[in-house]
């Protein structure tokens, strides 16, 4: 065991893992985190706590991660390269570990131009692959990036992101291989809507042996409405929503669109359960945490394994 986290145990035992997502609030209100956590507890194995996603200022992801622990969830602490240099990042990793955080997800981060502080100075001192290298070195060698010794090593289970739907497509498997070489233990993909392209990607990743070296979790986002489907297609970078999905959502009454979105997600999850090379699902129910129990129930992912 590298970290001993629940997520790691479930993946090592080859149980089909399920991770969720919890976006910290745009304020210092603990009750928001508690309310969201209530719906996720017992429904997922661990929960991504996003780090100022879409470059909007939110409660620090380490702080919301600690609140999640207090609510009985296991956090996947997200860390982006956009806002902090290597000194602050390594410092936060030590702090996060000291406070009981055991899973970390290393990301580049959305560009500041998307957020509410587009005039801020972007940092990007290191990139996501260099961050993975750093966390691995801290854990396995007990050394900072500088090479100096760490007294108590932060033993983190290291996650990374993967987007098979962004150009250049042929480079995506190379990038996955690089992240594995850097030290990624598991991957969560961008929201999958284009199943054909995803199947092709997984087949290539299987052929290259990548899915044997790291656990791959398929990203699923249930569409709440036709408006959301169109927004994801047109405005969210790196997301590929095929017209067939748009048509399918558009084909039902407005009141039924959320239900149809959940049905599509459940069909995807059924396929992922049987897909060679997949170790689980990452369920991103964006600002829809209260529907997670229903989705997980309908996707026949309950009860979650006890480890």
């Amino acid at each position: 065991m590298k970290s001993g986290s629940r997520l790691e145990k479930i993946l090592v035992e080859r149980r089909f893992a399920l991770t969720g997502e919890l976006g910290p609030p745009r304020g210092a209100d603990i009750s928001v985190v508690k309310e969201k956590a209530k719906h996720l507890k017992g429904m997922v194995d661990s929960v991504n706590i996003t780090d100022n996603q879409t470059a909007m200022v939110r409660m620090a992801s380490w702080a919301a991660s600690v609140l999640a622990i207090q609510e009985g969830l296991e956090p996947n602490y997200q860390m982006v390269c956009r806002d902090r240099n290597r000194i602050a990042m390594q410092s936060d990793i030590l702090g996060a570990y000291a406070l009981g955080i055991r899973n970390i997800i290393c990301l580049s981060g959305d560009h500041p131009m998307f957020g509410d502080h587009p005039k801020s100075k972007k940092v990007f001192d290191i990139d996501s692959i260099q961050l993975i290298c750093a966390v691995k070195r801290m854990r396995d060698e007990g050394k900072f990036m500088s090479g100096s010794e760490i007294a108590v090593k932060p033993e983190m289970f290291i996650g990374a992101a993967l987007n098979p739907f962004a150009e250049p497509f042929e480079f995506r498997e190379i990038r996955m291989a690089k992240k594995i070489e850097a030290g990624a233990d598991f991957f969560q993909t961008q929201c999958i809507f284009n199943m054909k392209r995803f199947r092709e990607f997984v087949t290539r990743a299987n052929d290259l042996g990548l899915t044997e070296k790291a656990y791959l979790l398929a990203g699923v986002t249930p569409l709440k409405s036709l408006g959301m489907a169109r927004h994801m297609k047109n405005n969210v970078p790196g997301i590929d929503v095929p017209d067939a999905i748009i048509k399918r959502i558009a084909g039902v009454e407005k009141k039924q669109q959320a239900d149809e979105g959940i049905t599509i997600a459940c069909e995807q999850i059924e396929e992922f359960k049987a897909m060679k090379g997949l170790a689980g699902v990452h369920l991103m129910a964006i600002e829809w945490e209260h529907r997670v129990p229903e989705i997980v129930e309908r996707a026949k992912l309950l009860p979650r394994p006890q480890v």
Partner: protein
Amino acid sequence: MIIGEVKPLEEIKSLIKGYRKILNTGCGGCTAVCLAGGQKEVDILNTKLALSCKAENTPLEIDGFTVERQCEVAFVSEFDRMVGQYDAILSMACGAGVQFLAERYPDKPVFPAINSTFVGVNKDIGWYEERCKCCGDCVLGFTGGICPVTMCAKSLFNGPCGGPQGESCEVSKDIPCAWVAIYKRLKGQNRLDNIRTIHTARDWRDQVQGRIILDQYKSRYVQDVK
């Protein structure tokens, strides 16, 4: 070359407010080439300032003089005989030129009239694009001659983020993704191995002011270097 843009007139006016006799100094180097701070632009700015101050009944005497380059002591010294007659100096050079003047004339207020924006190329007349961040650790050798520090919005070193929209950067459809371009060029040159390996965290070299003294001149300046 260094590309600059003339500051808004109101900002320049607020900088020189209260000074009656001004010497506006042009630079015949980069800022002249990018049509921001050569003799012609000195003349235009001086005319605008004079007209504007006249309209507001603010007394202003402004002269212009342009040297070959404001970043070189041999040329900057041409101002020595003039500066005594003025209350303040306006510089249309890049930030390096402004500071070089301020350093040479420590008793005189020196104000920038230009925003130095980037190191770039002249794509066509009046069209400039950034190409270099002067980061001090050039990686163009492994990125197919396309700079990820400058051209990638996140300055990534190990390939594209998950954000490209087609071949565009997530930031704007009008900005090409640097890593899509790097990938294509290296693939075309059969050099993809360059970006298969991990490029480790780099030395940004921006902790202290940059200074280079060529080896062959070290003996000449070594006492001053300390």
